[in-house]
C-alpha cells in the first residue's frame, strides 16, 4: 500500500504492507528507532508516539491508519542543543534510568502539556499511566513533568495540519484489502458484499494480528465515516457515534453532565494511548464481558443502533449480547451508534471498577448503577455488572428487590440486594481473580451504591 504521512515535520511517501505496525514502519522503513517495543500488545507504552496531537501506541496501529496523518516521534522533539522542555526536565530531575521506556514517557508528557497547561500531580499520573517504567518508581518522572510545565513551551511551528484525506492507494503485493469508506451507506454496501472485518479503533485487532490469531483478507475501517463519529442530542437521548474514540467521549461535556457513569467508565478504559484509539462500538462488538464502557450502557438502558444496507434497527444494550463474545449483530450489520436516553433529573449514577491495578487494567469486577428516588421510594433501579459472567449482565434479582423499596429501609435493602447479586452472577476463576472474589465484590459494590443513595 502506498501511504503518505508527515513524520516530524517531513512529508513521507512509503510503500508498505497495509497492516504493518506503525512501530515497524517507523523503525524499519524510516530508521526512527526511538520508539521501542516492550510488549507488543499496547500495554507498556514504550512505542508511544503522537498522532494528530494524541498519544497512541504505535505497536497497535496498522500502517494504513497513519496515511494522511501527522506523526511526532521522540526524534522530532528536540536535541541536546535545543531540547524540548520535557526532555530538559527529564534530564534535570533524574527521571531517566535504563532509558527504554523514556521515549514513550517523554511523548506522553509532551501530549499532556500540549493538551493542558499546569496539570496537577494526579492529572500527570493519569496521563502517564499507560507508560510503564520499571526503574524509577515514577516520582522523578512526575516531578520532571511538573518542572517542564513551568517552563515556556516551544511552539512546534513546522507541523502541518492533518489531511486532506485521500484514500491510500493499494499496491499489487498487498496481502489484505483495506476499505476506508467515508459514508455510512458506502460502508454498509461493502459490508453487504461480505468477507470483511470491521475495524473501529484497532486496539484489539492490533494484538490479534501481532499474535497471528487473525489474518483477515479484507478490512472495513470506520475511522473516516463521519456519521459514526461524535455525540449529538436526539430528543431526550444522546446519540454516540460508534467510532468515536474514548478520548473524545471523555471530553464531551454532555456525556460528562448527563451520563456521569459512562463518563467515569470511559476514563477507566486502558490509559490515554488506548483512549485515543479505542471506541465504544469496538467495545460492544468485541463482546468481552470485561468491557468497561458496556455496563453503563446497560444501566442507562441504552439502545444499540445497527445499520445495514437493508435498513436499521435498534436493540437494547442488554439484549445485544447472546453469549461469551457473541452478539445479535448480523454479519451485514454495523454498530453505527449507541442511543443513550438521558435519565430523569435526580437520577443517581455510579460506576466502580475493581481492576488488577488503577490504570491500564482489565476489570476483575465492574458495576454501573442508576436509580432515582421519588417520594422516598427507589425508582428505575438498574444495576449492570461486568467480568462476572460470559457477558455483561443486568442484576435483575437485585434490581427487583430494590425497585419500589423505601429509602427508610435502605440498609436492609442494601444487604438483600447485595446477597441477591452475589447469587445471580456466574463468575469464574481465571488468571486475574477468583470466582469467590468476584461474587463477593459484586455484592459489596451493589450495597455500596444502595447505601450511598441515603446521602
Amino acid at each position, binding site marked *: 500500500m502506498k501511504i503518505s504521512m508527515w513524520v516530524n515535520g517531513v512529508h513521507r511517501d512509503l510503500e508498505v504492507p497495509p497492516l504493518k505496525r506503525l512501530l515497524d514502519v517507523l523503525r524499519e522503513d524510516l530508521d526512527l528507532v526511538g520508539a521501542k517495543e516492550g510488549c507488543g500488545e499496547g500495554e507498556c507504552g514504550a512505542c508511544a508516539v503522537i498522532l494528530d496531537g494524541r498519544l497512541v501506541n504505535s505497536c497497535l496501529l496498522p500502517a494504513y491508519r497513519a496515511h494522511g496523518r501527522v506523526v511526532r516521534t521522540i526524534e522530532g522533539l528536540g536535541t541536546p542543543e535545543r531540547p524540548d522542555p520535557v526532555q530538559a526536565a527529564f*534530564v534535570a*530531575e533524574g527521571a*531517566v534510568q535504563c532509558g527504554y521506556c523514556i521515549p514513550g514517557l517523554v511523548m506522553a508528557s509532551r501530549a499532556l502539556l500540549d493538551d493542558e497547561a499546569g496539570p496537577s500531580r494526579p492529572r500527570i499520573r493519569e496521563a502517564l499511566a499507560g507508560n510503564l517504567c*520499571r526503574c*524509577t518508581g515514577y*516520582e522523578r518522572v512526575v516531578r520532571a513533568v511538573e518542572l517542564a510545565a513551568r517552563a515556556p513551551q516551544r511552539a512546534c511551528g513546522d507541523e502541518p495540519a492533518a489531511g486532506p484525506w485521500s484514500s491510500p492507494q493499494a499496491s499489487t503485493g498487498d496481502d489484505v484489502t483495506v476499505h476506508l469508506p467515508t459514508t455510512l451507506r458506502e460502508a454498509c454496501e461493502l459490508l453487504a458484499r461480505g468477507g470483511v472485518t470491521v475495524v473501529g479503533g484497532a486496539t484489539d485487532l492490533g494484538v490479534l494480528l501481532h499474535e497471528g490469531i487473525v489474518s483477515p483478507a479484507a478490512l472495513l475501517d470506520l475511522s473516516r465515516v463521519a456519521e459514526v463519529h461524535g455525540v449529538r442530542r436526539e430528543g431526550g437521548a444522546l446519540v454516540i457515534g460508534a467510532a468515536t474514540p474514548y478520548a473524545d467521549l471523555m471530553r464531551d461535556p454532555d456525556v460528562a453532565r448527563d451520563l456521569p457513569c459512562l463518563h467515569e467508565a470511559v476514563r477507566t478504559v486502558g490509559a490515554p494511548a488506548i483512549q485515543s484509539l479505542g471506541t465504544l462500538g469496538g467495545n460492544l462488538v468485541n463482546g468481552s464481558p470485561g468491557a468497561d464502557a458496556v455496563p453503563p450502557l446497560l444501566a442507562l438502558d441504552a439502545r444499540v443502533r445497527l445499520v445495514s444496507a437493508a435498513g436499521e434497527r435498534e436493540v437494547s444494550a442488554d439484549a445485544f449480547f447472546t453469549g461469551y463474545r457473541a452478539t445479535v449483530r448480523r454479519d451485514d450489520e454495523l454498530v453505527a451508534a449507541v442511543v443513550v436516553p438521558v435519565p430523569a433529573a435526580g437520577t443517581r449514577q455510579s460506576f466502580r471498577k475493581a481492576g488488577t491495578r488503577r490504570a491500564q487494567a482489565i476489570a476483575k469486577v465492574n458495576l454501573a448503577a442508576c436509580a432515582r428516588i421519588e417520594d422516598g421510594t427507589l425508582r428505575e433501579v438498574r444495576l449492570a455488572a461486568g467480568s462476572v459472567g460470559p457477558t455483561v449482565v443486568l442484576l435483575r434479582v437485585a434490581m427487583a428487590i430494590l425497585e419500589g423499596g423505601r429509602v427508610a429501609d435502605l440498609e436492609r435493602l442494601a444487604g438483600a440486594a447485595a446477597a441477591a447479586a452475589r447469587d445471580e452472577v456466574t463468575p469464574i476463576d481465571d488468571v486475574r481473580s477468583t470466582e469467590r472474589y468476584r461474587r463477593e465484590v459484586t455484592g459489596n459494590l451493589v450495597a455500596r451504591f444502595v447505601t450511598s443513595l441515603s446521602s
Partner: protein
Amino acid sequence: MPAPPDRRHVGAPLPRLDAWGKVTGATTFLSDEPRSDAWLGAAVRSPLPHARLVSVSKTAAFPPQAVLLTAADLPCANLVAMVREDLPLLAADEVRFATQPVALVAAPDRETLKAALAAVAVELEELPAVLDLDAALRGEGPVWGADNVVAEYRIDRGDPDAAFASAVTVVEGTYSTGYQEHMYLEPQGVVATPRPDGGVEILGSLQCPYYIHNALKRALGLDGDRVVVRQSPTGGAFGGKEDYPSILALQAAVLALRCGQPVSMIYERREDVACTTKRHPSRTRYRSAFDGEGRLLAVDIDLVLDAGAFTTLSPVVLSRGVLHVAGPYRVPHARIRGRTVATHTPPNGAFRGFGVPKAAFACERQMDRAARRLGLDPAELRRRNLVRDGDTFVFGQTLRPGMAAADLVLERVLDRSGYEQRRREARAFNAGGGPLRRGVGVTLTMHGGGFTGDGEDRIKGKVAVRLDPDGLVTLLVSSVEMGQGAATVLPQIAAEALGLPVGRIRFHQPDTSAVPDSGPTVASRTTMVVGRILVAACRQLADKARAFAGDKAADPLLAAGHAGLTATAVYESDPDIDWDQSTMHGDAYQGWSWAAAVAEVEVDVDTMEVRPVRLTHVVEIGCAVNPVLCVGQVEGGALQGLAWGHLEEMKLKDGRYWNDRMSTYIIPTSLDAPDFDVELAELPSPRGPFGAKGLGELPLNAGAPALAAAVEDALDIEVFEAPVTPEILLARWREVSR
C-alpha cells in the same frame, strides 16, 4: 561525625552522563541496530514439566536452509556453567521443566524460522511432576539429587532451646512470598557472531559479561581470547540479566557456529516472561522468644526456597537469605536452617535483593506479629532490639564502631514521616466508618554490600584506567550500566580520585576484549567494591602521570597524555576480616547498608484494593556519590518491593507461568505508585570509596513488609504473605468479621 571533606565530584547531583542520549532517542539498544545479515534463532521448548524426551526430528516441511540442533548434535559440552554445571543447554533424554529447550533452530528470516519451528516434531512421554514445595521437601521425584535439596545452610548460636524454655513470650508465624518477574522494559536479547578464528562474539543486553564469557569458554572449550562478550545499552535488568543471558548467549553461539552466520535471538515479551528466571518463592517458619521487656532471646527459623528444576544461583541466593533472616536485631541464641529444594518448574534465579527481600519479609512480619502479642508499638519493639555498634549478629559478625545505623534510620524515618501522628490520624479516620481504611506501617531492614564473606577475595575484581592522548582518562571495567547509574557514578569517583572534571573521564562500554574482569554487576557491589578498586587504579595512574610529567606540570594528566600510561588495580581486602565459609561464620559483609521505611496505605474494604499513598524511606549508605541517582534507586527499588507485596502475582498452571504477558503479570503504573519521600543518611565506611556502601538492592527489602504492616494496621487483620492480594484480604476479612 567529622565534617565531610571538601569534594567536588563525589556527592554532586550530576545529571547522568547517558541521559541526553536516552531522552532524545539516540541511545541504540540491541534491537535498534539493523542487522540484515543476521539469522534468527529460537528454542523449541517442552510444553510439559516432566517427561522422557523420546525424539526430536524434522518433518518434511522443515525448510532446507534452516538449521536444527538437538542435544545429540551439539558441537560442544551440553552444559551452562553457573554455580554448578547441572543445567544442560538442551534436554537430552529427560525434560525437567516446562519451557525447557529440547532443540534450537536458526533460519535466515522470520518466515523461514516460523516454518521451521512448526516443522519440528517433539515426542515426549509424560512423567509425574513435582510442582509444589511440600512434595519437594518430602523428597518426591526426586527432581534433583537424592532428596531434592539443592543446598542447605545452618546457623547455630548459643543455646536456643534453653532460651525458648526461659522465654516469657514465644511468637510463631509462617510467612510465604511469591515469584517475582523482573519485567525490565527491554526484553532479553543477544546476537552471536562467529569469528574468523573459530571463536564467537556476543553482543547483548546483559549484566555480567564475564559470566557469559566463562559459560561460553566452558561449554565450547574455547580459550578466552576467542570468546568476546560485549554489552549493548541495557534497558533494565534487576538481576534478570545476571544468569539467563549465559543460557541465551550459549544458544545463539552454538547456532552461529553451526550456521557460520551471525544469529540474533531477541525475545518478544511473552517468551521472555514465560522462560526466564524469576525471584524464588519462599516459605519461612519463624519462632521467636522474648523476655518480659520485649527483648529477643532467641530465634528458630526454617527458610525454604523453591529452586526450580536446576541449581542456577539458588545456593547463593539462599546463603544471603539465611544471613539476613534474623534481621537487624540483637539475637543471642539462634537456630537457622535454610534449604532450597528442586521442583519441576522453571529454574529461579537472581532478582534485586537476592534472597534478602523474602528473608526481610518473614523477619519483619514476625516482628509485627510479636509487637501485637506483646502489646508494643511496632516501632518500639524494633527500637528495643535493633543492633548497635558492638553487637554481634547471629553468624558471628561484630559491628565495629560506625557500622551500625539501624537506630539512625529508624528514628529518622519515624520523625520524618510523622509516624505517631499519622497512626493516630489513621485510627481517627477509620473510626468514622465508610469503605476506606487507612493504615501506617514501619519496617527496618539492612543489606550487606558486595559478595558474601570472602567472595570478593575469591573473585579478585580488576580495574584498569588508561590515559589517552587527548588527556581523557578511560575507565576499563566490566561493570555495566543498566539504568542504575554505573556509567555516571564510576566516572564521578574517578574524577574525585584524579582531581579532574568529570568531563575528562570516559566510560568504556563493557567488552571482554577491552576491559578486565571487575566481577559481575550484581550484589550492590559496583560503587562500593569496583569503585574502591577504581580509586586505587586512579591513584596509581596519577602517580605515573606525575612521574612522567614532572612535579611542576600544572596538569600532569594532560601533559602525560601521549605517554600511553595505564594502571591496573586488583581488589585487596582489608586484613582485619574474618570469615569461615564452611561454617558461614564471621564478617559476612564488609559494609552494611540500612533502611527504614514508613508506608501509608488506603484500603477499600469493598474491593480490598490497596493503594499505597506515601512511602517515607530513610537509607544509610555511607556516602551518596550522586544523590539524585541514589534517590532514584531508592524510589524505583521501593516500588518494586511494594508491588511485589500486593500487585505482582505469578501463578503456575500445569507447571508453566500463567501470567505470561504484560496484561496479566501486573506491574505498577504511575497511578499505582505512592508519593515518595527519601532521605539519604551517610556514615562513611572505611571499606568503600569515599565512604560509600552498597545501595542498589537495599530499597527493595523494605517495600513489601512496610506495605503489609500498613495493611495490617488499616484492617486489623494479619498478613502472612507477599503478595497479599485483594482476594486473600477479602477472604480473611470475611473470616474475621463473621
